[in-house]
């Protein structure tokens, strides 16, 4: 069993209070080996965060799995009670670094207490005495290049945004999870702090605190440097999956091309490059959409695009969900 994470045609939907069914994620499939980093990019409302809940087995109403399977080192997360997921999977097998770290930490508890709670939840503190637990935490937090004692003994409000983000990463990876899912961990930070946090993540990978990661963000240039492979998500579907270099430097799906075309960076040979733009906004996922979901906004759309379902196929050694991409 070489794959640490296998996702087979995962389809998720929300059931709103008034019985409306929203197909947030449709037919997502990918596999990850030990030590691999997968980047998932997409704009707001494309279903990234919904996918995260699916990958952690957290199907809490109003989110329901329609079909498909998620296997973490061979163990399926489907139709299991939340209690079972909570005690056996979360923080141990699959762990998550949340988006806004700013208020992800309980404001009325010290960092060391939150960390101790995590250990207690997964019966990692058999010894139970505070001294030993504190030593274990100090040893782990020393890796993060911050004044460990100050951080561990302060409340979240007493820390800077960067320190809070690193503490969250420390807590999420405390029990050496097999797969770590980072949901836009640095989007709220300024560029310099972002670099410090990413460096810390690479440090942890080197010291193999954890080895396999899914990094979710809408900043493609960042993914170029962080991820081995990148999957572009649009309206609940993967539209292009390939290596970081392929997707960023040689995009094939019209949506990826548009994303890369809209990038503006501050270097000379880009001065007169006209940024490409696309009108409109992603379709609402309330109704089942026939054909390609990007059709109305696609610059090279054809009449058939609107009614023929597109499936992922190999184009230029990567998967593209468009019959006319070359």
């Amino acid at each position, binding site marked *: 069993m070489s794959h640490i994470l296998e996702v087979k045609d995962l389809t998720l939907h929300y059931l709103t209070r008034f019985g409306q069914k929203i197909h947030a994620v449709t037919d997502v499939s990918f596999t990850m080996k030990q030590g691999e980093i997968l980047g998932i990019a997409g*704009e*707001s409302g494309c279903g990234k965060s919904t996918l995260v809940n699916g990958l952690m087995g957290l199907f809490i109403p109003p989110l329901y799995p329609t079909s498909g399977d998620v296997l973490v080192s061979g163990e399926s997360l489907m139709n299991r009670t939340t209690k079972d997921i909570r005690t056996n999977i979360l923080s141990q097998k699959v762990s998550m670094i949340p988006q806004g770290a700013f208020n992800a930490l309980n404001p009325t508890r010290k960092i060391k207490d939150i960390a101790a709670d995590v250990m207690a939840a997964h019966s990692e503190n058999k010894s139970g005495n505070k001294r030993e637990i504190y030593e274990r935490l100090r040893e782990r937090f020393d890796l993060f290049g911050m004044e460990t004692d100050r951080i561990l003994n302060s409340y979240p409000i007493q820390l800077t945004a960067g320190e809070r983000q690193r503490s969250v990463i420390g807590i999420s990876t405390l029990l050496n999870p097999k797969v770590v899912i980072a949901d836009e961990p640095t989007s709220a930070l*300024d*560029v*310099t702090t*972002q*670099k410090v946090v*990413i*460096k810390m993540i*690479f440090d942890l990978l080197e010291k193999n605190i954890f080895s396999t990661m899914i990094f979710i963000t*809408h*900043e*493609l*240039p*960042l993914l*170029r*440097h962080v991820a081995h492979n990148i999957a572009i998500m649009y309206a609940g579907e993967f539209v292009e999956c390939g290596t970081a270099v392929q997707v*960023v*430097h040689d995009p094939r799906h019209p949506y990826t091309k*548009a*994303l890369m075309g*809209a*990038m*503006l*960076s*501050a*270097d*000379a040979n*880009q*001065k007169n490059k006209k*940024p*490409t*733009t*696309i*009108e409109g*906004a992603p379709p609402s996922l309330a109704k089942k959409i026939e054909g390609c979901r990007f059709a109305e906004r696609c610059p090279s759309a054809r009449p058939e695009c609107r009614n023929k379902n597109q499936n992922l196929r190999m184009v230029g050694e990567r998967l593209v969900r468009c019959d006319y991409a070359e």
Partner: protein
Amino acid sequence: MRNNIVFSAKNISKFFGHGKKLVCAVDDISFDIADGEIVSIVGGSGCGKSVLAKIMLGLYAPDRGTFLYKGKPIVDTRDHWNEVQSVFQDPFGCFNQFFSIRTQLKDAFGILKNKPSKQEIEQRVDEALLAVNVKPSDIEGKYPFELSGGQMQRMLLARIFALKPKVLIADEPTSMVDACVRANILDYLMKLKESLGMTIVFVTHDIGLAYYVSDRIFIMHESKIVETGKPEEVTQHPKSAHTIRLLEDIPDINREWIKK
């Protein structure tokens, strides 16, 4: 290029709070902005760039130093707003949810001293909507919560096309908008400059956008302007340590960022 000075600031500072909680948002800043120029102010969150923008707009008055618009300090804000207008960051927060978009676009004319006639206002609003590629029928009777972020940002720009002010302060108009629509906003800014000779101050945290759209760039850090210059100068051979670090830290697809 007519180089009469539009904005000139001499050692202006702005503080908030009092006593021990005193915070310096703008610290001893001086600059000049010429007519018809697009100047970008680039800096991270909390560096004071928005406060500076609000000073130029006349919403805040500097606590120290002098700030002149066309050689005169801002005394009557209503006069000032006849010529200096603004676009804000949050497209959804900019419009009042209880009035239709068209009514709010027409309200904009309330600031003009010599208020045009009813027909002329209607006509100028229609012209402005076409200038931002929106058919008037698209927004007929629509309310702000019925449109997307990108469309709402366009409405803010349409307001500027309609009012035709001399100066536009664009306070982070792109940061709450998706990437593909972001470039449109920049094109409209340039269109305002070419077609109406408008002076534009573009405030952003993304130096890439500033590089693309502006004639000059001010880099701001901790309430001070640490570097000014043409886009090529500032990005190819930056002088201040902060700018160098800033350019290094931006993940660029064509250059090494972190040793993996």
